[in-house]
């Protein structure tokens, strides 16, 4: 039989049970533990190469070897003189020229005139080029074609060898051409 007292007692019990379980359920755990550990194999195919050259793979190449790679894998879309190819279905950018044009009425932005870091060229060609078969070049071929483009741009000598040590040391013509974002532009405030 449920007496009044009994009822009160069990209700109190119930409340305290509820409260303790609620307290238990509250708040995110310190660690969810949903992920799995990253293995070296997981990262094997991934790279990203900042200006200090961290992440550059072993291997090397020079402009002579790069000229062959370029003729075979790049020229169809970027032109045999690296002048670009605007044909429909292609649209490869111009890669050379434009030095000294940035402050004029006709700025020409290319690897030669605009890009601040040579490491970016290696990183970009390795990740996205050739457009028709991205990621298909061997690291030696990438060093070589990078050497070729930089040599055609007269940024390095035709005999220079590009590798993990030399590439980060290349100083691009527009190395100092970038400034931090100056916005918000305070003159535009009420």
């Amino acid at each position, binding site marked *: 039989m449920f007496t009044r007292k009994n009822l009160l007692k069990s209700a109190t019990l119930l409340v305290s049970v509820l409260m303790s379980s609620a307290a238990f359920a509250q708040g995110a755990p310190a660690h969810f533990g949903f992920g*799995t550990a990253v293995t070296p194999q*997981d990262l094997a195919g991934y790279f990203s190469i900042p200006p200090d050259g961290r992440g550059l793979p072993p291997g090397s190449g020079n402009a002579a070897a790069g000229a062959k790679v370029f003729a075979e894998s790049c020229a169809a879309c970027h032109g045999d003189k690296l002048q670009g190819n605007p044909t429909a*279905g292609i649209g490869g950018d111009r890669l050379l020229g434009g030095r000294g044009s940035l402050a004029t009425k006709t700025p020409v932005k290319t690897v030669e005139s605009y890009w601040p870091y040579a490491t970016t060229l290696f*990183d*970009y060609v390795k*990740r996205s080029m050739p457009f028709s078969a991205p990621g298909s070049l061997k690291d030696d071929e990438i060093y070589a074609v990078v050497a070729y483009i930089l040599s055609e741009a007269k940024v390095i000598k035709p005999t220079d060898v590009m590798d993990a040590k030399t590439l980060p040391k290349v100083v691009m013509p527009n190395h100092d051409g*970038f400034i931090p*974002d100056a916005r918000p532009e305070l003159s*535009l405030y009420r």
Partner: protein
Amino acid sequence: MRQQHPAVYDEKAQRLADEMVLAEARHIAQRKAQDQDLDQDCDCKEGMFPQASVTDRRKFLFAAASVAGVAGSSALAQAADKKAPAGAFHFDVPADPTKEQGRAVLADGGYGSRSQFETEVRWRYPTPNDLTSWSMTPLDKMLGNLTPSGLHFERHHGGIPTIDPAKHSLIVHGMVDTPEKFSIDDLKRFPSVTRKHFIECSGNGLTEWNKPTLKTVQGTHGLISTSEWTGVQFSTLARELGLKEGSAWVLAEGADAAVMTRSVPMEKMLKDALVAYGQNGEALRPEQGYPLRLLLPGYEGNTHIKWLRRLEISDKPFMTREETSKYTDLLADGKARQFSMEMDAKSVITFPSGDMKLPRPGFYNIQGFAWTGRGRVQSVDVSVDGGKSWYPAQLGSSPEPICTLRFSFPWVWDGKPAVLQSRCTDETGYVQPTLKQLIAIRGSNGPFGSVYHLNAIQSWAVNEAGDVANVHA
């Protein structure tokens, strides 16, 4: 064109501009061809009413052939049915829908599609290569604030990949205590948030720096769309993994053919970055990064990495191609601003807008969108005299952070020439500038000025005949 304008268009820019104008003209022609199939004589033929007034489309014929010719085979493949517009199926229209049964429940296979009478589509900038190109949202046809997922603008640098979510994962590594790999299911187990935000490409309007180039608001402003996004906050993942002292930048990488990468300041990542898997109540659309994208509220669209597969925590930015060669703003002195991330306050009138026609003097409800990447919209003003006098617009909903807002303004057109403008002020006190003000700061030496971050006041001129045109005023 070259002679008309002091700014020098080099060959490449001239070609791009010319082709954009042509592509837009084809899109307009297609719209008009559809309107001519109407058997009623109505104002809507003139592109007059932006939406919903087209009621009788019995004679509607979808010009499948002309679409294929214009947009290429991909457009055709997109149409669920060749007789219906993209995203729709064709059904015969009964003489009286009250006198016969309609379609059975689940006749659509369990997933609905839009009406065969709704024809709006994105159109694409005619870059030479349609694998690296962009398409624009028809802002003038939007009903309400959210963009239908199928009309969200796109920018791809290596096409749209097909990704099996069961084989996709997100790796977070670098300067963290414990690098981890998350499956999509893992990510969905974390606490999630749902937020409405716009995404705007910082190249939105790039043709408009030096002269009014495109005719319609879809062409001048269509690289902005708004969705409700659902996902895990980056801060939740950061807490899970632990950040090492000195971690200051995060490289986000996509799993597309461009293997797109951008460096993002850690401050932003911890403030409000989302690893999003949901868009408007369902999984992301493939064009929007299925199964995973980064969402950086208020940052330029390119940083919202789609098909996200990796976040590498670092002490310095990586200086990827997209943050050096592209998405940097070249100023008149030859220096370029880098990491110009936030999208400044902006607004545009979508009705009436370019290439519409006001059939006669009288009442028109001016409508538009306003937004800011720096918080909430505070107010919107409208001018009908080219900015000489301004009146407060009515806001269509309460402002939400980093989300578009509809505004409207009742206007009686007296039949005289008018120049319509809107001006957004955001909660930081920033006022949307005129083009002159912006060019005074940024210069305009390039064929497309400094290319990115054009957020100037847009002007639409109405002449005595009621024709609405894109002008610089």
